[in-house]
């Protein structure tokens, strides 16, 4: 009896483990969120303007051509630094979790997850480059949020369910930002900073803490 029950449990776990990448760490989300918050703070201080009006359509008009180019370049560089740092921290925590679980990081499930994320993300990236090219800077924020949300939604099939809800949240926020373009930096900060921290923390409590305890590591100490 017990043997059969155990077999069923193992089958269920094997089905999930083999088709989904479950080593995604909540701390990856939290670290990406913190990096995004720092990035937003830097932009906020550098452009010396209030949270609500920075990056808006009207505001950029006031910079003049030289100011526009400078602001453009600054935002561009900050975005790249934030992206690379967030990815580096995110990868670090997820690789660490996979090692703790004794799982491979590079397997069929993680390859599928990466591909599912990459297609919408690269599409979004090229789309945003086009926006930059045509100088429609105020649409960058909604576009990054929407494409990122779609990427998460697409990738959520191959990982924990929470990623799907994060995807919906990012899409909703992006659509909202589309019509409230005066609040761009605020939306960006909520989408990439606050939401990452909220979902990352939730995922950490739900999955990582337990697996750390199972491994005999006490995360609170």
């Amino acid at each position: 009896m017990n043997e059969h029950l155990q077999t069923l449990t193992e089958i269920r776990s094997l089905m999930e483990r083999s088709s989904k990448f479950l080593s995604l760490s909540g701390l990856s989300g939290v670290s990406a969120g913190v990096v995004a918050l720092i990035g937003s703070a830097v932009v906020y201080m550098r452009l010396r303007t209030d949270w609500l009006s920075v990056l808006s359509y009207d505001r950029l008009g006031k910079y003049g051509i030289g100011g526009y180019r400078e602001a453009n370049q600054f935002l561009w560089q900050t975005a790249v630094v934030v992206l690379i740092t967030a990815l580096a921290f995110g990868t670090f925590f997820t690789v660490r979790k996979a090692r703790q679980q004794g799982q491979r990081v590079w397997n069929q499930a993680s390859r599928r997850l990466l591909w599912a994320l990459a297609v919408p993300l690269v599409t979004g990236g090229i789309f945003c480059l086009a926006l930059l090219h045509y100088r429609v800077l105020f649409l960058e924020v909604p576009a990054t949020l929407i494409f990122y949300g779609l990427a998460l939604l697409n990738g959520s099939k191959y990982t924990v369910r929470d990623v799907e809800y994060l995807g919906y949240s990012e899409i909703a926020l992006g659509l909202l930002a589309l019509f409230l373009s005066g609040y761009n930096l605020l939306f960006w900060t909520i989408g990439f900073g606050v939401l990452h921290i909220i979902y990352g923390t939730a995922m950490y409590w739900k999955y990582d803490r337990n697996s750390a305890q199972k491994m005999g590591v006490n995360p609170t100490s």
Partner: protein
Amino acid sequence: MKDLLAHFNKAFESKARLSIMSVLMVNESMSFNGLKDLLALTDGNLATHLRALEEAGYVLVMKQFVGRKPNTTYQATDAGKAAFTDHLNALEAFIKTL
């Protein structure tokens, strides 16, 4: 009790074979190495179980070359999926009677 056990499939008697089938149920196809990592079996052991499943007509073997390296992937056949589902149902029914 005997009726219930009649639906237990001999091909799935070993846990390794049951595990192989459960992986192939949710993945369209899986490479030999992918299966090896998931199930933590030795090459010889896994190959034997896969051959048994292949002979039963439950698993389809596809050999390809990636560059010069041979790459063997496995797929569950429709018959294999049906047999696996029947076996699981029998297992479930058996547990419920206890």
